[in-house]
């Protein structure tokens, strides 16, 4: 137990160190790089190193402490935090929705081979196709669509997109796990004259957990991506994506501000991943430590 805590601390330390090194590289480029951008191999691929395009790392961090807009009382960090929190709630909703449907569909596919044969190819292919292209369309439903008196709120589109991206890895991974049961265990359950439902609950699901864990990780990042893309493609108010776009537009006047939102979006992803990782640890307790992903 102690060694695993030490290992986590070590990895966290390495992570911080790598961030420090990146900051160092950033400042180094600012020091030696061409102020107005430059050419390499005849192409303009060297970015501008002046303070307007590349603010100092310290400027980025200190920007959090200053007011968001000149004359406003709200500090940047509180605005970014509120935006990240908004998006976190949407991502969680999307994750839960997408994962639930994914698990349900996986059970259906495990039960009925013909459903698996019919749907699985599409599910696998869908992960290779930029379904995120649908984002603007789904978001455009907001404020316009009415179903039986229920008006589709714009934020629901973001959650639905998050759910959409979370759904695919969960359904594929859960199916893989449900059908990965060794024959002898199935024979054992048969010898007890167990029903399909009993076999599902007592054998297939527990056996599927090690496969669902990496699928949940993918779903977590998918739900964040879906929500953030929905927010940025049409500026959904309240979310971190909108802040990134807004601050990017003001980048000429206030170069450090956009970084505050970018870091906020990164924090969003990390928090979501941490929540799912904690759930994964809970699910995999009492299991042999054979797989590390």
């Amino acid at each position, binding site marked *: 137990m102690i060694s695993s805590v030490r290992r986590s601390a*070590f990895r*966290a330390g*390495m*992570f911080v*160190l790598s961030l420090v090194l990146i900051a160092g590289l950033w400042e180094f480029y600012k020091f030696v790089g061409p102020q107005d*951008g430059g050419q390499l191999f005849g192409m*303009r*691929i060297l*970015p*501008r190193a002046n303070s307007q*395009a*590349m603010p100092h790392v310290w400027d980025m961090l200190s920007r959090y402490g200053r007011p968001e807009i000149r004359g406003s009382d709200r500090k940047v960090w509180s605005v970014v935090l509120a935006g990240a929190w908004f998006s976190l709630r949407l991502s969680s909703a999307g994750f839960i929705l997408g994962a639930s449907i994914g698990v349900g569909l996986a059970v259906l596919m495990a039960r009925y081979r*013909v*459903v698996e*044969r*019919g*749907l699985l*190819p*599409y599910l696998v*292919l869908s992960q*290779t*196709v*930029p379904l*995120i*292209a*649908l984002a*603007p*369309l789904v978001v*455009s*439903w907001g404020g*316009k669509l009415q179903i039986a008196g229920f008006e589709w709120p714009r934020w629901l589109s973001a959650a639905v997109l998050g759910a959409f991206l979370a759904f695919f890895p969960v359904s594929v991974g859960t199916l893989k796990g449900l*059908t*990965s049961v060794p*024959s002898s265990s*199935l024979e054992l359950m048969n010898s007890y004259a167990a029903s399909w439902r009993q076999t599902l609950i007592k054998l297939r699901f527990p056996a599927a957990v090690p496969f669902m864990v990496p699928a949940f*990780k993918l779903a977590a*990042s998918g739900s*964040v*991506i879906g929500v*953030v*893309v929905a927010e*940025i*493609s049409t500026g959904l108010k309240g979310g971190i994506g909108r802040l*990134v*776009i807004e*601050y*990017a537009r003001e*980048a*000429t006047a206030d*170069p450090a501000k*956009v*970084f505050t*939102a*970018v870091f906020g*979006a*990164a924090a*969003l*992803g*990390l928090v979501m*991943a941490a929540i799912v990782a904690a759930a994964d640890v809970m699910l995999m307790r009492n299991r042999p430590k054979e797989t590390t992903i």
Partner: protein
Amino acid sequence: MSTDSFASRVIPPAVFGVGFLSLWEGVVRVFDLKPYFLTPPSKIIVQFFTNFGPIREAATVSGKNALIGLIVGAVFGVLMSFTLSRFRFLSQLISPLAVALNAVPIFVLVAVLNNMFSITSEIPRRIMVTLVVYFIVLVNVAKGLTQVHSTHIELMRSYAASDSAILRKVRIPNAVPYLFTSLKIAAPVAVITAFVSEYFGGSQNGLGSRITSNIANSKNAAAWAYVFGACLLGLIFYSISIVLESAASRGGAATKKRN
């Protein structure tokens, strides 16, 4: 097993596909759904062929960004992986960072990159794709170079083989399938990243920008056609990566029995 015949593998997905499209078409017509909600597949196909020229142009722009980023990212990833496999400390340093980046919507960096280049440049998007592909390829190929059967290494040492000989004869061959697996993952991700990067402003010539502009002009059917074009682009990239993978691998991978 007779149940794994060609027919049993092709017919169900075909039936489901046709059924889904028919249902879509039917629901839109029967409920007379407004075009801003769902466009029927029939209209989408018409729009696709009507706008084929512009769609192809936009796809070429996005596709080029994805391809350049894919190639450059893969090359740098492979090169760096050699260094990573050689110096354990480097891999310990990079690995938590790579894990963290996997969880993060890294494409928001495009907002920053756009500011560092001229406004009409496609370079920020290419850099974004390069970055994303780089980490995918780096992690996987490094794994392939280091996770070698210990018995293979012991055998080579018993021949007093040098480190570089071990690299050439054992590690690199072991890493080749990992490279192609990573490309299989990275190819669609490259397309998605190139795509999403277009939402942050900058040049408006790619597929992503066209979709938003069509929606803004209430031309939803055309927008769907561009979405279809984007999916085709993604499929093309994925197919190429699959072809590369099967060309490189001799002999099939063992398949686990489905219970």
